[in-house]
């Protein structure tokens, strides 16, 4: 049972990627109802609250924090195995608020996403330091857009060359896990634009294999830590 919470208030991408554009949020006695993709996958995003997908949400920090609080307090998720929270870029209000508001419960950890080039790693190192500052455990780093294999000639190109060693070197230096590398596959962007599951559309893609390995490692991390907690208790 999975819940996906999109707290990117300015640029909510999840509704489109899940094929849920145009869906509305319904209220009931028990709170806001998430929008269900499948019986076991519910989604919440500011995208569902806009009258038109092009409406800009031009809010300062405090108002964004207010909505995030409402999302956490008022959405009736039911019993959930995994709550995944998608965040916007940066280390600001949304990030501080989600960590603060969830401090009463336990956050298993953060999955940090980067691309291979130093200009990205530069920002991601800051994000890793943010996690350490707020004592948020880091499950690991995913290197996205990591190389492109031409489907015709099978030649591999580094579209975003890892001039400083990519996520691999950064993870070594900062002592965090590299969960995996996901290559560029135009089908990923296409599936997201169409609101379809890439994993279902392209089961043979090298990117699918990467995703599945990463997901497995994340699940193992969560199960391991849950087990350790139960031992302690």
């Amino acid at each position, binding site marked *: 049972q999975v819940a996906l919470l999109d707290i990117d*208030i*300015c*640029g909510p991408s999840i509704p489109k990627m899940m094929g849920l554009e145009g869906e509305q949020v319904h209220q009931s006695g028990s709170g806001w109802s998430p929008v269900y993709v499948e019986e076991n996958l519910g989604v919440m995003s500011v995208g569902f609250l806009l009258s038109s997908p092009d409406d*800009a*949400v*031009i*809010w*300062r*920090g*405090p108002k*964004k924090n207010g909505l995030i609080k409402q999302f956490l307090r008022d959405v009736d998720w039911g019993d959930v195995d995994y709550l995944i929270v998608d965040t*916007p*870029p*940066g*280390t*600001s*209000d949304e*990030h*501080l608020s989600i960590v603060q508001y969830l401090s009463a419960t336990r956050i298993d950890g953060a999955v940090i996403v980067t*691309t291979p080039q*130093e*200009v*990205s790693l*530069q*920002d991601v*190192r*800051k*994000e*890793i*330091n*943010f996690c350490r*500052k*707020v004592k948020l455990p880091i499950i690991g780093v995913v290197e996205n857009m990591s190389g492109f294999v031409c489907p015709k000639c099978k030649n591999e190109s580094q579209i975003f060359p890892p001039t400083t060693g990519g996520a691999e070197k950064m993870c070594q230096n900062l002592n965090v896990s590299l969960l995996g590398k996901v290559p560029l596959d135009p089908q990923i*962007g*296409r599936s*997201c*634009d169409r609101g379809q599951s890439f994993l279902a559309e392209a089961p043979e893609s090298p990117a699918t294999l990467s995703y599945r390995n990463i997901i497995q490692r994340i699940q193992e991390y969560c199960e391991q830590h849950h087990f350790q907690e139960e031992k302690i208790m």
Partner: protein
Amino acid sequence: TVPERANLAGVRHILLVLSGKGGVGKSTISTELALALRNAGKRVGILDVDLCGPSIPRMLRVQDSAVHQCDSGWVPVFVGQDKALALMSIGFLLERPDDAVVWRGPKKNALIKQFVTDVAWGDLDFLIVDTPPGTSDEHISTVEALRPYQLLGAILVTTPQ
């Protein structure tokens, strides 16, 4: 004290580079545009108001520079021998490059206002303002602070998907 208008009085055109979306190449385009204008003989300044992810210093190879104050405010970092390209970024104010700027909106707004009014740019043909992704504090504050000046317009950057 120097009146607020003075530091931008010598700037002929102000351009904002916006997107909404992260990772599409705003900072790259801001940098390439600034370099192209400089090569065309213009005096150019870049104001990097991406407080959480300031990319411009590294792109111009001045990430190890420090900024100083003068009577009229902060002196920008000059790139290259000819000093025809000036840059101000929060990147220069960090003690360590990996330090995260973990600020809420009000603190970001205060710094952006200072960046807009307190940098001693001198005479510029173009001031390019690079912004972070989103439509939030940084964007509202930047536009508000620049309202009294010659805001030429915005360039929007996207990727195709």
